[in-house]
Each structure stands twice: as structure tokens, then as C-alpha cells.
């Protein structure tokens, strides 16, 4: 079986044309990116606001309960309801994006909220006390301090979305899910297995990229690195990100 999957993965025909791996991967990445951008645009400002103001904490609970909704079922339901009102590709894409956004919002919302909420009250009090206006407190203190949790939320959402975006194939869209759906339909198990391997690899690579971005944007003062005394022999002076 593993040999068959390997053969499928390495054959030239798997890598060319509209059903080739590069094209399917690109589609998959496209759906995932679109979903994550939309979800982040909703969940980050909302989570930050809840954490900053302390209002609407129940929204986080409600969002988390949404995790219980099965995405595939939701996709079919949304397609049935929305399709008659929509034209062409959008008729399939929109339900798919909505279903996946609902999957991605809870982890991002929780991360953003918990990150801002967890900012040391003394640091927040000091920020206000030295003369920062509410916006400045948010920009210079709360957001940078919230980044570790905010980034974990985003990475966790990315993993789930990449893994689940395979369902797009059920409603006739592309992406790596095509190999799973088509492979099962035609009893072409090497194709199904190969698709699964590709999804897993893609998710892994995306998470590594996320980890690299996180290491770059999060201040060393908030992570293990900045807590280790060994580093102090090389004083680093203000990088643009933290010094404004």
C-alpha cells in the first residue's frame, strides 16, 4: 500500500494538468488562505476588544460551542439553502467558506481574547499611568503582549482549516480533497492515500511557517529566549517592532 502511494505521489502524471498536485495544492492553499483571512478579520478585532474591555465574554463561550457543529453537515445544509440564490462557482464556494470560517473563528477568538486578557494588570495600569491613551495602551502594550496566544490561536485555526478544507471537494470544488473524494469513488486507494499524505504534509509545513513567523514577531521578553540570562551578554537594542 505504501509502495502504491509512493508510486502515485512520484508519477509524472500526478504532477501535471488541472488535476495535478501543484494545481490542487494551489487551490487548497487558496481556500485556506481566504478562510483564514476572513476568520481573522472577524475574530481578532472581536477577541481583542473583548479582552481589552472585559465586555461580551459570553461571546467567546458561544463561539467555542460552535466547535461542536460538524463542518461537513453544515456545508451540505448551507449549500442546500444558499445554492438557489447564487450563480456559478460562488454557489459552492460561499457555503464552503462560511462553514470553514465558522470552524476557524473559535480558536482565533479564544487566542486573541485570552492573550489580551492575560496581560499583567500592573503593566496595563502603568501604561495608562505614564500617559498612554487607550489606543496606545492597546497598540504598544496589550497587542504585543497578546501575540504569543494570538499566534497560537491562528496556527491552530490554520491546521484545522487546512485539514478540513478537503470537504470543498464534496460540493464539486477543487483542492487536495479531490484526491480523497475521487479516489474513494473510483476505488483508487493509492490516490486517496496520496491525497491524505499531501494534506498532512501541507498542514505540517504551514505550521512550521507559522512557528517561524511567531518567533519573529513575538518579543523575546515574552518567550523562553528572553528569560534566559545567558543572552544578556549581547544586549540587543530596539528593533523597530518593539521600540516605537
Amino acid at each position, binding site marked *: 500500500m505504501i509502495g502504491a502511494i509512493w508510486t502515485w505521489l512520484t508519477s509524472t502524471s500526478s504532477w501535471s494538468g488541472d488535476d495535478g498536485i501543484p494545481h490542487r495544492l494551489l487551490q487548497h492553499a487558496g481556500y485556506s488562505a481566504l478562510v483564514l483571512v476572513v476568520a481573522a478579520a472577524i475574530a481578532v478585532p472581536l477577541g481583542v476588544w473583548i479582552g481589552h474591555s472585559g465586555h461580551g465574554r459570553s461571546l467567546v463561550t458561544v463561539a467555542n460551542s460552535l466547535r461542536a457543529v460538524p463542518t461537513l453537515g453544515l456545508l451540505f445544509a448551507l449549500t442546500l439553502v444558499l445554492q438557489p440564490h447564487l450563480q456559478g462557482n460562488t454557489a459552492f464556494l460561499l457555503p464552503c467558506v462560511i462553514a470553514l470560517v465558522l470552524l476557524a473563528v473559535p480558536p482565533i477568538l479564544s487566542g486573541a481574547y485570552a492573550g489580551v486578557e492575560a496581560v499583567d494588570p500592573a503593566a496595563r495600569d502603568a501604561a495608562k*499611568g505614564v500617559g498612554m491613551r487607550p489606543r496606545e495602551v492597546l497598540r504598544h502594550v496589550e497587542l504585543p503582549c497578546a501575540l504569543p496566544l494570538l499566534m497560537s490561536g491562528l496556527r491552530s485555526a490554520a491546521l484545522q482549516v487546512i485539514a478540513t478544507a478537503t470537504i470543498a471537494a464534496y460540493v464539486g470544488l477543487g483542492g487536495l480533497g479531490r484526491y480523497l473524494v475521487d479516489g474513494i469513488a473510483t476505488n483508487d486507494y493509492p490516490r486517496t492515500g496520496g491525497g491524505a499524505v499531501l494534506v498532512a504534509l501541507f498542514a505540517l509545513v504551514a505550521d512550521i511557517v507559522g512557528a517561524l513567523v511567531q518567533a519573529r514577531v513575538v518579543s523575546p521578553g515574552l518567550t523562553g529566549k528572553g528569560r534566559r540570562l545567558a543572552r544578556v551578554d549581547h544586549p540587543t537594542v530596539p528593533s523597530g517592532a518593539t521600540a516605537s
Partner: protein
Amino acid sequence: MIRFDGVTKTYADGTTAVDDLSLTAPTGKITVLVGPSGCGKTTTLRMVNRMIEPTAGTILIDGQDTAAMEPAAMRRGMGYVIQHAGLFPHRTVLDNIGTVPRLLGWDRRRTRERSLDVLERVGLSPDLAGRYPAQLSGGQQQRVGVARALAADPPVMLMDEPFSAVDPVVREQLQDEFLRLQAELGKTILFVTHDIDEAIKLGDQVAVMRVGGHLAQMAPPARLLARPVDDFVADFVGRDRGYRALGFRPTPKLPLRAEPTLVVGESPSDMSGQWCLVVDDRRRPLGWVRPGDLRGPVTVADLNRGGTVAVQGGSLRATLDAALSSPSGRGVIVDPTGALVGTVLAPEVVALVEEDRVTQAEAGSSP
């Protein structure tokens, strides 16, 4: 000058945190607000920079009503130091210190130069500039907190229990350096603490507050110890206040007795003698030994280090304590370099205390 005029803070639930408070914190002096928890001292402090808005009354800074100022702009002109320092964990020490200058729109270079300057002022090495707060000890964090407050050179400093969260030894160091710094800078400081010893040590004047936000007494520390206005203040300033008041009296010139000394490695000439003082090669006292206990030349392990050492011309409290704590009963007096000058007996110091009291009473200037 910070002036409170009939200031009251009542919360929505009806509790009164501060009740009709009027007091003045003079320019260039340290005014300490002290009292038990719930006395409204922190609320009082936080009303100055409008972190809490007063319900009634006015607070004037150099004659200007704070209610008419824009809060954020006003806060940039006041140093603010809080109990756990409240440093920004994601910023380096240098960037923490430069916070207010940057808010005021200074350029990076000027902010950096000023921050390094202030870092040294508060007694920290420039090597720490690139560290993050989590890499600092509690005492170092508190110093950075003070440096951050000083960075834009504000005339007024608000300090809310800044030294309470560190251990007693570090606290004492921080207090001493704070006094040294204030002697150089002469800021108008409002300082909150629950520790009456800290209040008495640091305050040019001390305002004792009682629960319910009432001012019980406002006086210079020596007067507070000598003349508490009521039982509450008397209780609060503590039972050994007679002794502590001696901390404000300089020791007049007193006859010292010469003290025979030994250095480590020497054997006493008179083995039957009572306590002998051991000094180092620069005549700095190390401790006492009893020749009868020795089995040979003096070693470091033989030393009794129980006695405190008083600097000549220091407070009567330090001088008396040196005598009382010395195992030989002879208090060790040193010059400012730490070298032995002589010793003094407790009755001699007590006689001085009495003499000092009589002189003060005759001069009519009893504190």
C-alpha cells in the same frame, strides 16, 4: 506643589474611600501617605493623576486645577511608580525607560541617550539595557520602574508602595538610594506606603490616614513620633517610638574610650581579659573575641559579630544601638571610612540623650 482641597471620593455603592481631604505636598519634598489598608491612601494618590476621578473637591498642581487638564498629557508630566513595577514585559529595559520620552515625541537617539543616563542614575549597569524585565531581579525591576518614571524629568513623582514587593535587605538599599537620588533631583514626591518605618525614614512630612479616608495627622516624622495627636496615630507609629525618635537626633560629641585591638592571627597578651575587639589591617572592626575562649591565635571563626557599628556623629539611635548590641557592652564607633575611633558605653549615650532633651526643652524647640 500638590494641593488637595476638600477632596472626597465616594463609590457608586456608597463607600467613601477618601473623605474631605485637604493637604499640601510641598515642592521639592517627599510627602508620605501612610495608613492601614482601606485608609484610602492609594485612592488619594491615584486621584492626582486622575487614574481615579474625585467625587468632590479640587486637586491643584502648582496652582493649576487637574480637572481642567487632559489626563494623558498630564500623566506624561508626572512620574508614576507602582508596587510591582509594572514593566512592559515585551520591551527591553532601555525601551521601558524610554516610554514617556517616546510618547512625548523625542527622537530615538535622544531617548536612548537619556534612557542610558537615567539607567545609571538609579544604580544599574548599562549592561542591563538590552535585558527584558523577566531577566531582572525584583529589586532591579523596581529600579527600572523608578528610571522609567524619571526619564522625562517630571517635576512631580507619584509612588505607590514602590518598595513593598522586595525583600527587606533590598528594600533598605532601594530606600537609601531613593533618598540619595532625591537629594540630587529635588522632585515633588507623593509616596504611599503601609509601612510606618518606611514613612518615617523617607518622608520630609508624613500624613497618617485612618480607615474611611480621614487625615489623622500630618507632620514631619520627628514630630509625629514625639507628639502623636491621638491614640490611633500613637498606636500606628508604634510602641518603640521613643527609641526610634532618636534616629532624628544627631549624636553630639562624646568622649570615646580607646579600645585595645587585635588582628586575626594574633594572640591576646592578656589571656584572662574580657572581650577584645578584632580589626582588619585598616582598623575596620570585624568582631569581638573573649580571650578565655581562645585555643590559640584569633581566627575568623572565633569572631562574635553581634554588635552593630555606629558612625561618629550619626544618630543617637545608631550610637545607642551599637552600645546595646555589643557583646562587651562597649559600642563601636567608626569614622566615615569605617575605621575604629573608639567605644562608648550605653549609660554614657543615655546621659547624652537626657542632656539633649533638656537642652531642647530649654531652647523651647521641642519637636
